[in-house]
């Protein structure tokens, strides 16, 4: 650790420790990994440099992740919208994905990651895209639209009254589908609090929503 430790000033380091869920070692490791992404001449001032998205995605921790673009997008503070990341963004990301982050903050960011169109709610399109990410983008691995419909179900086609959609009568004794069980106020979409509610009931979430550097 010696070499990299000297590059982050002591007070900055303790500040990072205070502001994130990361320990000193983790921050130093993050710094090392981050500066490796930069070209040689910029490594001196890695704290202020920005790494383009394409470089960030070469990290083995993100390379294979189907949500990689969303993750970059959510954590980037780039003003130009190119999803490049500064060191602090990088730390923010690692902090959320770390062991000690509360499941509250984890679910908050998970919601944002799953919200592909950034409109603050998980609607039908987001859910479809989420399912596609989970099952893989290949042609043969995607669900057919009918299956998708069935999975998400409770999204009522326009013009149909609630409770009268053809699916509900049929599925009375069947396990509820996604929207039916998570859309508490029945407005056809999932908002942040509904999402957090569902996620808080699943003990697996906090253990799976983790990235270890």
């Amino acid at each position, binding site marked *: 650790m010696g070499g990299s430790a000297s590059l982050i000033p002591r007070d900055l380091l303790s*500040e*990072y420790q*205070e*502001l*994130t869920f990361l*320990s*000193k070692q983790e921050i130093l490791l993050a710094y090392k990994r981050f500066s490796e992404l930069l070209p040689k001449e910029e490594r001196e001032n890695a704290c202020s440099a920005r790494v383009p998205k394409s470089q960030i995605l070469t990290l083995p*921790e993100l*390379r*294979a992740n189907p*949500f990689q673009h969303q993750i970059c997008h959510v954590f980037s*503070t780039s*003003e130009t919208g190119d999803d490049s990341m500064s060191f602090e*963004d990088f730390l*923010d990301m690692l*902090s959320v994905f770390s062991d000690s982050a509360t499941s*509250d903050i984890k679910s*908050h960011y*998970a919601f944002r990651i799953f919200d592909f169109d*950034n*409109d*603050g*709610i998980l609607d039908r399109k987001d859910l479809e895209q989420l*399912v596609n990410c*989970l*099952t*893989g983008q290949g042609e043969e*691995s995607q*669900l057919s639209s009918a*299956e998708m419909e*069935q999975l998400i179900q409770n999204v009522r086609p326009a*013009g*149909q*009254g*609630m409770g*009268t959609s053809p699916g509900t009568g049929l599925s009375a*004794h069947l*396990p509820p*589908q996604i929207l039916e*069980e998570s859309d*508490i*106020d*029945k*407005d056809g979409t*999932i*908002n*942040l*609090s*509904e999402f957090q509610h*569902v*996620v*808080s*009931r*699943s*003990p697996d979430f906090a*253990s*799976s929503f*983790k*990235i*270890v550097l």
Partner: protein
Amino acid sequence: MSYHYNESFENPDYHFSETLEIDRRGSSQRNQFSHQTPYDSSLHGSSGEHRGREQNYPVAIPMASLGPGSDYSQDLPRTGPYGNFTDSLSFEPEPEETYVPYSTFHMLDYPYTHGISSGSEDSFIRRRNRRPPDEIFMPSSNMFETDPVCTEEEDLVGSLASMSTKERIKAIQKMPETMRKKREIRNKVLKEITKNSRHRGAQCTQCLQGAAVSFRRFGNTLSECFHQLRLWHKTLKIIGAEFGTSVLSYFVFLKWLLNLNIFSFLINFGFITIPQFLAAQPNNLSFTGLELFTGAGYFQQTVLYYGFYTNATISKVENGPSYNMQLAYIFTVGIYFVICFLILLFSMAKFFSRNINSQTLSVNASKLFCTWDFKITNEKAVKLQQKNLHTQIKEGLTEVNKEVQNFSVMERVAHIATHLLAWLASLGTAVAACAAVYFLSINNLELFMKGYRNDLENQSAMLVLPVIVSLLNTLIPFFFSWLGHLEKFQTPGQHIYVTITRNTILKISIVGILCYYWLNIVATSESQCWETLVGQDIYRLVLVDFIFCLLGSFFGEFLRRVIGTTVCISLGRPEFDIGRNVLDLIYAQTLTWIGILFSPLLPGIQMIAFFIVFFVKKVSLMRNCQPPRKVWRTAQMMTSFIFLLFCPSFLGVLSVIGVTVWRLKPSEECGPFRGLSSVYAAVDEWIQILESYTASKWVVWIYHNLISSELFFFILSSILLVVTYLYWQIIQGRKTMTELLRKQINNAGKDKIFLRKKLVTLQRAKRSSSAWGGRGQQRSASSSRQPAPEVPDYPERAFDRNQNTSYNEDWK
């Protein structure tokens, strides 16, 4: 509750008093006007009609609705006095309420409080706001922003400043904000604090702060040291990356057991063995090497076994402090078990409390939202996980499509008959195994009684029992899983749990019969030092079990892989059998716990064994196995494993230890308790000695009035029962609450749809009356896309809700 819907049904303010936070934003999501990026809208009310709506709800996020008035009125005429009313009312009490979670960190509160509320607009918007804002509404919303933000931030800073340092750091860490914003807030808070502290005795606080800082620094260095010690961080990471959390949980469990054994070894070594070294007699038995397997011979006269320990009081200096071996032995073991009990209890409580909600688990939603394992970074593993999820989702869908099969009576009878037969077969096997072990062990004892001969035949005869036990433990589970396949369970979960139950029964009964043999037959036999014999037996069992574990990963995983990839390709690579492996670990740990009294250094041996098992399993996993196809409910599995470790295993061990300590007579000629009627008599004697000293009267008092008095335990357990009952009642109350609140939300959602419909009809009426207003037309057309299905039966529900509310208030 002065509103009545009649007066305000076209005003969304209506919801103000009775709606929960949850639907505040959800309601307007379908709103076609909310072109703004939503995250800022969620934070500060955004703009446009969207904002107008939100403005009037008492949003939990403080900044959300501070702005007076709203641009709602730009599009729609505001009706009645409610606008003002809400504006003035909606916000005052909110900030405190919102911060409650942070100051108390009450986990139960959190599902509906929105992350963190802070005045973090600028960076937040920058981060979110990729699309150009709606030109029409942006200026107005900007106007609103400036003022509320300041007060908001001040509020936030104020509340943060009033917290203790630790709480403050935690609260700031928990904010879903960018680093810059957090830093800004922190700096403001610090400024605020220094400003405040200047008023008070500055010097004293400074002094204290200095101490606190140095203390914290010390703590940091300490945690750094521990961090360096964090074993196998990288190994665990790799396993998690390739095999996912479920397989990782096995290794985490193994590591946990290893730590437990290291701890127990250190205590036993420090408090029992080191003093014994000081008083040790020379060992004159020869060492041939075979003893390593049998644990007999040379080892009989070492610190490994109970029999070697002295009953003397050790004192190196004349008249100096002395060390009573009897007490050291009993207290070390006793305290170790108490600590183990507490550790297990707390980790069980932790897991249970985490899982308590999962009973009404929403299957599909959580499958989508929670199953993706972000730890997996291996490309192949990702592909595999996607494929597995795909098949699972499809299976789920086909299950939905399938009607629940109605079996005929005959089929049902056949099902039940197969299950019964399978249970009979498995229980019969367990009983047969127990009988075999029992007769074999009696045989074994006769062998010991014949006397000690140091020849090969005798030594290998000693190994027969442990080898047979391990063989039974390894082979019968295969039989059980074959039975499970025959039975055709309806869900794979059932299959797993039934198999685990059968295996547990088998292992427990084998251990049970061995305990019976040790406590009832060996202990009453004529042997010179029965404790040492038991210790040796356990030593052999542990060792052979360890060897079988290694062999198991060789045959079960390596050979299986070779066969699966070369001979019979359809089999493929094996999966890592988490259930079986964890049960093996629990079995090994049970043996170690039983053995602690008879062979205090057994945890050390188990520690080495676990250490090796970790690496062997890791290599075997990496080389031979493929990631699991099923998505295991990891958290639940861990809960049940810890529970198994506690309930049959640890409690069983406690009863065995209890019988040994209170009921059995220790050997006459060896061990620290020689000559006593029972092990516990040592404590009695000690108390009698203490009674003669006035300085230690309190110990005697505690002993008589608390530890050895039934009344105390009676009172203690009745208090516990009362507390349990109270908590149970609270839980019932909470459940009712949840149900009511859920109903309320549902009703509120219906109200909203109803109101939206009303709004649309009103707008339409207005539009038809006044010919102009192209924009409005467009609007209403688009907003009518959100259907309003049925006109709810209004007054009745309003009444209903009022009822609910009053009920809730009662609850509070």
